[in-house]
């Protein structure tokens, strides 16, 4: 098993929200499974202290809805699903992300044309 790299936190900050919404878009799920899916996707270990407040924020914003289901002798699990507004948001994210990823990849890979110089300078 390959160990997933540790990504800079500022990269993850931008990716985590869209990734979490996209995972929930694949079907009703709960926090621990979302964390597992993020790890499987190669985004590394996202701790509960980061993940659960994010899920709660999306729920407060009306993008997610939740239901507690009792477990056998345990505290149960809180399942999350997309609301219609959440589904619209995921569609928008997926559409825009492709454009953003292409633009960022082009810029970072250094394949962009250098800006034209005007000959003016110090």
């Amino acid at each position, binding site marked *: 098993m390959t160990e997933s790299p540790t990504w800079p936190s500022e990269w993850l900050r931008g990716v985590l929200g869209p990734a979490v919404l996209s995972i929930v878009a694949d079907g009703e799920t709960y*926090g621990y499974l979302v964390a597992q899916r993020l790890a499987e996707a190669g985004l590394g270990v996202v*701790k*509960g*202290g980061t993940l659960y407040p994010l899920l709660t924020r999306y729920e407060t914003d009306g993008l997610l809805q939740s239901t*507690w289901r009792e477990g056998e002798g*345990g505290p149960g699990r809180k399942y999350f699903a997309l609301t219609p507004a959440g589904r619209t948001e995921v569609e928008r994210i997926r559409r825009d992300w492709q454009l953003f990823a292409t633009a960022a990849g082009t810029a970072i890979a250094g394949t962009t044309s250098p800006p034209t110089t005007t000959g003016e300078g110090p």
Partner: protein
Amino acid sequence: MTDRLTTYLDELESALAFRETPLDVIVDVSRQVQSHSVETGEDPYDTFGPPADYARSYAPRATSTRFWILLVISVIMATGGGFLLVDGMIAATAGRAALGGLPAPVILVTGIVLLIGWITGLMVASYRHRLPAGRVH
């Protein structure tokens, strides 16, 4: 549930209650921590961070307006009541008028009323601030 998880939930619920988080949110947050920790076996302090920090992510307000109002009223009532009580006692012992030329018993009783009011106010605020069932987990 491990002792460590129980301790974490106690600290988390207290921290959320201190920030005047609604009870239904406290129950929900606490239950999610419990659910995740029981299922994964992870240490809650490692997974969720210090309880006070984790509480802040749900209720960013550090201290409430009510807290500061209570503090200011407490200082006024405690110092004012104490001063009037002492002044009234001294005036009554010396057989002279007290503060503002008022009779010593009036100042004395006013001081006592302020101090009793202060203590009663603190007890009421403390009672209303605690979690309804002590623990929610």
